[in-house]
């Protein structure tokens, strides 16, 4: 796939993905990147991920806390806030409303 195009899509939706991953519990940067890769979004580089996390933190959608890991180094753990939960609901619905017609059009094009 054209990686430029994938990058553009990701830019638009990475914050939603991160919020969604945090819905089930706190996580830290490296783990979030691995989760995204595992579900098939593809490898996310730190240079893309952390600015998004910082923006979410600045706008109050997540909070962050430095904690020593069990064995590893201290990590910065991110948690979803109530505002973040609301933003996820709202943004997620908007995204779904957007991709449904896109998918339908593109599906016809590809199948035809």
């Amino acid at each position: 796939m054209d990686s430029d195009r994938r990058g553009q899509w990701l830019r638009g939706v990475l914050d939603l993905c991160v919020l969604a991953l945090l819905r089930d519990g706190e996580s830290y940067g490296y783990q979030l990147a691995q989760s995204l890769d595992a579900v098939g979004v593809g490898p996310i580089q730190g240079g893309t991920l952390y600015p998004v996390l910082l923006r979410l933190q600045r706008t109050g959608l997540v909070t962050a806390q430095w904690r020593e890991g069990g064995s590893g180094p201290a990590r910065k753990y991110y948690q979803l806030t109530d505002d973040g939960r609301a933003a996820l609901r709202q943004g997620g619905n908007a995204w779904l409303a957007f991709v449904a017609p896109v998918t339908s059009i593109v599906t016809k094009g590809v199948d035809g």
Partner: protein
Amino acid sequence: MNADDWLRAFAAELYQRRVGGDAARHVVAEAATHLREGGGDPWLVFGSPQAYAAAIVESIGTAPGPRPGPVRLHARGITKRYGRHVVLRDASLTVRAGQIAAVVGANGCGKSTFLRICAGLVSPDAGEVAVSGRLSYCPQQGGTADFLLPDEHFVLVGAGQGVPRGPARQAGRAAARNLGWDAEDAALARHLSGGTRQKLNLTMSTLTQPDVLLLDEPYQGFDQGSYVNLWDQLTRLRDEGRAIVVVTHLLNQLDRVDVVLDLTPAHQGGRS
């Protein structure tokens, strides 16, 4: 450039962009953690230190930089002739507290002479210099004593201001560490490499807590890491409210300065 070098360069970039202390520390620490856990080449994971710092600035904004303060150095109408050869014609420069000024221009256009006039070591044929506060000058070469240890240099400079030996030595070593140099077990100045001797030179000039710091090409013999440390240190001094004038024959993107005086004859008179 290994991961540590990358992180150091990144930290310097954040500093240059006036990202505040705690915020910068957290971002750097997070990047370090990420690299430790995931490995990988920082240039691929984060991109260049400059680009990543720019992305961070975009995400979190920067602390508003301290506004330039009152004028600390005001040189106007500086003209200097050697015989019939006019070295400087009507050069002027104003630097405020919290600013870095670069004096640039081709070889032989009078950059060092201009600085020596500002330091009061050479008299101009015309023009005046007003300085407020303490002045310090770091010459391009010389300025150190061949047969003294770095510690003894620190003691000598400190005694000028009545600083006792112990504290003077400590202050000197601490200032040297800011340039990535351990001065504690160093040899006599004559046995130091060119770059290290220059660090001694620089350390001596910052040791007097100057309000106006004049530096004549202070990076001769520096490797890339030392060069980054130097600008890191200069930015720190600027943010403490010092006025800094650096003579340089080239400016690269690392060197974010507030004022430029170009002494190349074509634009003589300078701009700022």
